[in-house]
């Protein structure tokens, strides 16, 4: 085959992406105005967002490779990570999973900084660790599909911008559930919801399939399923959920977009549609979605605790069964969001039972963690503190979930502050505490700088107390008749609500302290991280810090499990073929 000498001249950086996205948006609006059926601009705005996103991705460089192959031009490889160690690699399309992990991390931190949309995109907050760590932990040099991995990151900035743009259109009045007909009544801000969430669905599917292929296909020799670190198991199960649940959301969003633009009536009761269709599709996605949050968090807790307890994971196989149990049951519970919506009464006992059953695999996660702590020699580091905080918070979150799963009590508690307190205990008290544990544990490997443990301890106690002070009163407020999402409420509850507001500011203060710790530890008192500061056995700590561009000089051979602490004759976890690492902690 003759390879043409012609080269494609599309640049590949985000500035070109933005320069292309702006005309893309206006082209979409123009098309929508030409062909739109209604005069409310919805068609134009949705087309504008979509074309802007495609143009942005083209500008970043996603079209270069397929076009080069299509026309037989010379393929220009994206710079090999080994050659490119400059700071600029973080601002370009990169196929190195470690660069993508850092890109993700910074994007998430920026979103958290800008507040509101951070809450929407929190679902992606454990992704950076997955991208960065999974190949390292399984002994691979890259993800199975690096281009797909880059895509699953690069759709997130447009999604964030599009969601933020809703502010200028008056926001979307429905909250994240987007129930029609309210979402059909809503103004142009709703279009941001549709396109932004659809892009996130794309990211969930692409990263899900990529993670599964990587974990199944690229494990190093000797990395058997029973030697797989628990964090990888957490990512594995969450990827199954993401891959299968996100298309349902995408389908529902397409129906909603069609209702709003081309006058279909999927959700319009007076013309034969039904809002129950949306409620079922949304929660069929939405309930696995909340386990997409929490499964990596379970993985993080079961991963970190053995390393600081200096004991093998107590019941490895049981823990894996627990993760899969949660993942499986999460498909059979979605109608507990609809107990009072008017669904068929005969369905309610089933969904009550299936929801309560989830507490069994969740209890297994607690058992495995507490069993690992039992008679241990606990090294009380900051990640360990956050793990214990997670256990306490998630215990309250889990128990309050049983209250909501019981139909008679759910009649009073549904849609009240009680349910809001419940899911904040699981998502913020659970997932975010696990995120903090992961940050203090793995950031030294990712950035090469230790975080200050003194500030970390203050951060933990401040956040733990402020979190509980903010959200525990909400259980009481909910029981005392306050519904969610209201601006006026029972005057008797003013005192408690003020307490919560003040606590929420303190909670925000703890986040500021975390940011201060990052800045202090990275730029002012930079303590370089050793290759293995925690003396952990697992594979990611056996490579030097900073991690070499190719991860491993040659493919490592895994010869032992990651948690074999204290076992007589325990071998180091892997034969790394003579590169300079550190020996395992055993």
């Amino acid at each position: 085959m003759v390879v043409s000498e012609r080269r494609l001249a599309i640049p590949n950086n985000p500035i070109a992406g933005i320069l292309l996205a702006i005309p893309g948006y206006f082209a979409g609006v123009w098309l929508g105005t030409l062909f739109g059926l209604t005069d409310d601009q919805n068609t134009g705005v949705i087309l504008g967002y979509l074309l802007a996103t495609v143009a942005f991705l083209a500008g970043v460089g996603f079209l270069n490779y397929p076009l080069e192959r299509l026309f037989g031009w010379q393929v220009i490889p994206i710079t090999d990570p080994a050659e490119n160690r400059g700071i600029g690699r973080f601002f370009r399309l990169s196929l190195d999973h470690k660069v993508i992990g850092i890109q993700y991390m910074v994007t998430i931190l920026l979103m958290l900084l800008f507040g509101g949309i951070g809450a929407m995109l929190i679902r992606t907050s454990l992704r950076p660790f997955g991208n960065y760590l999974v190949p390292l932990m399984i002994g691979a040099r890259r993800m199975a599909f690096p281009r797909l991995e880059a895509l699953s990151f690069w759709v997130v900035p447009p999604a964030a911008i599009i969601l933020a743009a809703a502010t200028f259109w008056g926001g979307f009045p429905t909250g994240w559930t987007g129930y029609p007909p309210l979402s059909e009544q809503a103004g142009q801000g709703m279009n941001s919801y549709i396109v932004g969430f659809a892009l996130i669905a794309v990211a969930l599917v692409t990263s899900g399939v990529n993670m599964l292929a990587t974990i199944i296909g690229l494990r190093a020799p000797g990395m058997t399923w029973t030697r797989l670190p628990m964090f990888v198991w957490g990512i594995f199960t969450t990827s199954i959920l993401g891959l299968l649940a996100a298309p349902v959301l995408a389908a529902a969003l397409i129906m909603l977009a069609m209702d709003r633009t081309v006058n279909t009536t999927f959700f319009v009761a007076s013309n034969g549609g039904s809002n129950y269709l949306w409620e079922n599709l949304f929660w069929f996605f939405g309930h696995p979605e909340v386990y997409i949050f929490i499964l990596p968090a379970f993985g993080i807790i079961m991963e970190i605790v053995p390393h600081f307890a200096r004991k093998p994971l107590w019941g490895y196989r049981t823990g894996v069964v627990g993760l899969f149990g949660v993942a499986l049951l999460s498909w059979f519970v979605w109608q507990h969001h609809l107990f009072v919506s008017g669904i068929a009464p005969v369905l309610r006992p089933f969904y009550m039972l299936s929801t309560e059953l989830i507490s069994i695999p969740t209890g297994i996660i607690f058992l495995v963690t507490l069993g690992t702590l039992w008679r241990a020699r606990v090294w009380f580091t900051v990640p360990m503190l956050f793990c214990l905080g997670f256990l306490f918070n998630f215990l309250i979150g889990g128990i309050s979930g049983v209250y909501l799963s019981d139909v008679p009590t759910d009649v009073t508690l549904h849609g009240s502050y009680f349910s809001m307190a419940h899911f904040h205990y699981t998502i913020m008290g659970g997932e975010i505490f696990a995120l903090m544990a992961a940050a203090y544990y793995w950031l030294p490997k990712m950035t090469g700088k230790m975080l200050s443990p003194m500030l970390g301890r203050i951060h933990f106690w401040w956040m733990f107390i402020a979190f509980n002070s903010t959200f525990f009163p909400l259980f009481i407020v909910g029981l005392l008749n306050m519904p969610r999402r209201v601006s006026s409420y029972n005057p008797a509850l003013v005192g408690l609500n003020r307490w919560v507001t003040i606590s929420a500011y303190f909670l925000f203060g703890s986040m500021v302290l975390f940011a201060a710790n990052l800045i202090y530890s990275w730029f002012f008192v930079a303590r370089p991280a050793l290759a293995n500061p925690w003396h952990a056995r697992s594979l990611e700590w056996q490579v030097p810090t900073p991690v070499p561009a190719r991860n491993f000089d040659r493919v490592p051979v895994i010869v032992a499990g990651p948690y074999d602490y204290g076992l007589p004759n325990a071998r180091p976890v892997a034969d790394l073929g003579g590169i300079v690492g550190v020996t395992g902690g055993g």
Partner: protein
Amino acid sequence: MVRLLIIWVILSAFGIVAALQLNYPPYDQSIQGQDQASTLKLLTVLATPVFIGVVMMILYAAIYFRRTVPELVDGPPMLGNTPVQIAWVAISAILVLFLAVVGIATLSSENVAQAVGQPGRAIGQSGGQTGSGTAGGSGSELHVQVIAQQWYFTYRYGDYGGVETTHLYLPLDRPVELHVTSLDIIHSFWAYELGVKADANPGVDNIFHVTPQKTGSFQVRCAELCGLWHGHMADSSGQVVSQSDFDTWIAGQQADFNTIGKVVPSYAPYYFPEPKLKAG
């Protein structure tokens, strides 16, 4: 270990006694509300020892399994204990199944059986049991239609000629069948003290049963985000009154309604006002 167990039993006993002392919402203004309150109490009583036990284990590990020497030492290599794991799973399974059985029993007891909504009839079918228009005696079930719209509720009494009112009055000790529907988007009819919550869906007749057993006022508010003034879609003007007071009140309402009844659509299971597609 035995010492731990004793402490756990003592703390749990105190916790359970405390949990039994509390007064649980939604209290006792209706039979259904009372059932919900007792379920809430049962859940709290069961949750107390679980919560105390797990917190004790976390604290015990944090205090007594702390490393005491400066250098890193490994703990005993315990890989798991099958009987303990089986016992843990069995105990949690028994608790969960017990809760499910109790929940289903409460659900299927006569009072709550139809308490939460029934699915709406398909569009085009007739409205069924409510459209009789005949006044029921004090023993029979009262049919009240709850109509939600942005941003208030109105009520139609099917047994009293479809009279429409802006306040909800219910007679004491008489079973009430609420038919909840919406004119525009999804709302949720929440009468807190009565233990009633039912979504109001356009084109759907969502049925909820309640039997008030104490006179007094109750609050009514919307519990499903419904747009700009959702927070103000609330009042505390609901009243449970004696049957004779109710008869007096409804007669007054019927007299008022005679003058405007001609312009109000005739009584139906649900309504589709114009404009059909978009209310906003």
